[in-house]
């Protein structure tokens, strides 16, 4: 097994991988940018390296700097986590060239699957169903506009190199097509250094259902069942669950087999995910392959009992998969909620600031994957996901109630979070019935505003008591002496002049 591994990431995923390594007796090296010097992943790692400037391109995306440091500390492997360099084939290649094991698939496979157009072609050739669309190389506006009309509206514009909703636009009519293409290209250029896009049919009642794959370097490939990831805002998943409420035994078997075929078609190794779109009639289409550990991997771990991060390390160490497909059992139900520093009542705008208090819910079958703690500052440099809350129970109904309990006990003060919003989604009667699609948030929560009834009485009483305890005596006197005839001294609620 590796003696030392560098984790080229930050936040909760760096923490999760560091712990997996430490449990296996592998020494860990964290990297961090200046603003992250006191972050939990730095605190728990055995060693840590300052990458300097917080701008991602100067730190967590800086390939030469990371590779040089890995060499200088003698790391035998690099785990890229997700995001940043996880799906960058040049990084995987650079590791390989320097004799460092990249903990993930081969660079060629990352490159192939990273090109969404080539990926679809490869899958079509392997008889994996794909969504109709335009995946051509001609990227001029005239061609794209023409092809877009052929595919028909609504359609999706997607960045060829994209992922996680970046460089993606829904186009409802011809009018919006050009501006959407332009904007998607620009976002993709900035995020991935590539402005190529493709167009795709937009499905009716679409669900996003993906299959987890593990493949060793000896030709063995298994799938670890599905994850339902339809609950998305701004095309980013916020709630994932498994099993999917839409799934039948037969469909699961068929999609699972297809996922294994897809992975084998590209000679895939290590952990990966085949993302499918499933329509209202349970037709499924290959969407893309994520060549890395997913954010939502814990729900698969909770229901299968398999530690995916540890298997990534074992596979990268040339170990053969000892788990057989027939021995795998999906048991119980798991949900993940992503805790974001963002404002759901204001277009999910990220929120920054100092975390004045973080207190996590805990109990049986409650898993907190977190990269933050009290007094840490949330900066605008990186993704605003603070933590993941993963719960599991014997069945979906119990589990939804468990998640609502856990969210109700999740304290994050100092930045605006999506916690209340997540709770409202879980409490929604259509969610409880399992009637979800990727449009769920847009359909039911478009104009959602937190606390639309204002500050509740209990909060007012609590604040008054708190201030009464914490206000210094001289201040109390000053307040007491305030003009008793002031028009502001009536006691109640009123709207400020706007």
């Amino acid at each position, binding site marked *: 097994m590796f003696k030392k591994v560098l984790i080229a990431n930050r936040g909760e995923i760096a923490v999760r991988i560091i712990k997996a390594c430490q449990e296996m007796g592998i020494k860990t090296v964290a990297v961090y940018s200046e603003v992250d010097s006191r972050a939990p992943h730095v605190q728990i790692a055995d060693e840590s390296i300052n990458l300097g400037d917080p701008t991602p391109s100067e730190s967590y995306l800086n390939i030469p700097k990371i590779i040089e440091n890995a060499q200088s500390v003698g790391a035998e492997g690099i785990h890229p986590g997700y995001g940043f360099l996880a799906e960058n084939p040049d990084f995987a290649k650079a590791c390989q060239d320097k004799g460092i094991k990249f903990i993930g698939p081969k660079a060629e496979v990352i490159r192939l699957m990273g090109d969404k157009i080539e990926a679809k072609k490869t899958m079509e050739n392997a008889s994996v169903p794909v969504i109709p669309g335009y995946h051509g190389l001609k990227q001029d506006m005239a061609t794209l506009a023409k092809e877009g009309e052929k595919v028909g509206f609504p359609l999706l514009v997607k960045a060829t190199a994209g992922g996680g909703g*970046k460089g993606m636009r829904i186009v409802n009519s011809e009018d919006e097509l050009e501006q959407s293409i332009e904007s998607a290209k620009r976002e993709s250029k900035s995020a991935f250094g590539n402005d190529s896009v493709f167009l795709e049919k937009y499905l009716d009642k679409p669900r996003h259902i993906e299959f987890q794959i593990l493949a060793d370097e000896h030709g063995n490939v298994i799938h670890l069942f599905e994850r339902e990831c339809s609950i998305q805002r701004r095309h980013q998943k916020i709630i994932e669950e498994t099993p999917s409420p839409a799934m039948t035994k037969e469909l699961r078997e068929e999609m699972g087999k297809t996922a294994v075929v897809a992975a084998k078609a590209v000679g895939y190794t290590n952990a990966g995910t085949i993302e499918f779109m499933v329509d209202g009639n349970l037709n499924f289409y290959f969407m893309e392959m994520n060549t890395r550990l997913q954010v939502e991997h814990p729900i698969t771990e909770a229901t299968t009992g398999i530690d995916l991060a540890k298997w990534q390390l074992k596979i990268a160490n040339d170990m053969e998969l000892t788990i057989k497909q027939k021995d795998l059992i999906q048991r119980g139900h798991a949900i993940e909620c992503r805790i974001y520093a963002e404002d759901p009542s204001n277009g999910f705008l990220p929120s920054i600031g100092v975390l004045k208090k973080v207190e996590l819910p805990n109990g049986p079958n409650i898993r907190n994957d977190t990269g933050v703690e009290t007094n840490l500052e949330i900066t605008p440099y990186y993704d605003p996901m603070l933590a993941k809350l993963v719960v599991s129970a014997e069945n979906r109904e119990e589990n939804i109630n468990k998640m609502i309990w856990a969210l109700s006990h999740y304290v994050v003060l100092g930045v605006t979070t999506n916690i209340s919003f997540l709770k409202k989604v879980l409490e929604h009667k259509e969610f409880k019935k399992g009637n979800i699609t990727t449009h769920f948030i847009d359909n039911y929560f478009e104009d959602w505003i937190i606390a639309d009834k204002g500050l509740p009485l209990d909060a007012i009483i609590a604040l008054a*008591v708190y201030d009464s305890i914490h206000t210094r005596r001289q201040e109390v006197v000053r307040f007491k002496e305030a003009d008793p005839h002031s028009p502001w001294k009536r006691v109640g609620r009123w709207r400020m002049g706007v």
Partner: protein
Amino acid sequence: MFINYEHENHVYNVTVERRDNQFFVTYDNNEYTVNATELKPGQLKIEVGDRVIKCVISEGEENKFVFIDGNIFKVKRIELTGQKRTGKKESRLSSPISGTVVSVKIKEGDTVKKDDVIMVIEAMKMEYLIRAPYNGAVKKVNFKEKDQIEIGQITAELEGKEA
């Protein structure tokens, strides 16, 4: 003690008097007699008759954060001096986020229509569009491509009127 809390553009006026662990809170013409204990810093257990309120309160630089019953409220304690204060006007021309300007769609003298995109700001790997809040003429553009912009800064000035 007389206190004013501001929460989402509303002001809540409340008085509180303390006698040991007993507090007399008056709000909206009702008086509440409550017993309260601070179990840990910021964590209060408050008894109002039969009811128990459990909450966690934390102070930021400007705001107080109240966690109560699974919900969080951001509240500012304000001093009112008898002068009616004017609430901060939220302008749709101000940046909703700190980030980098990636594209400026207008220049001085341009005429824009309501909802036209005038600037694109990128932060945390997402794009945010600034749209014109009304029809008008561009008087001044405050940022250019690649500039850093802070939350609340005004992207551009428009002549025209709010619809």
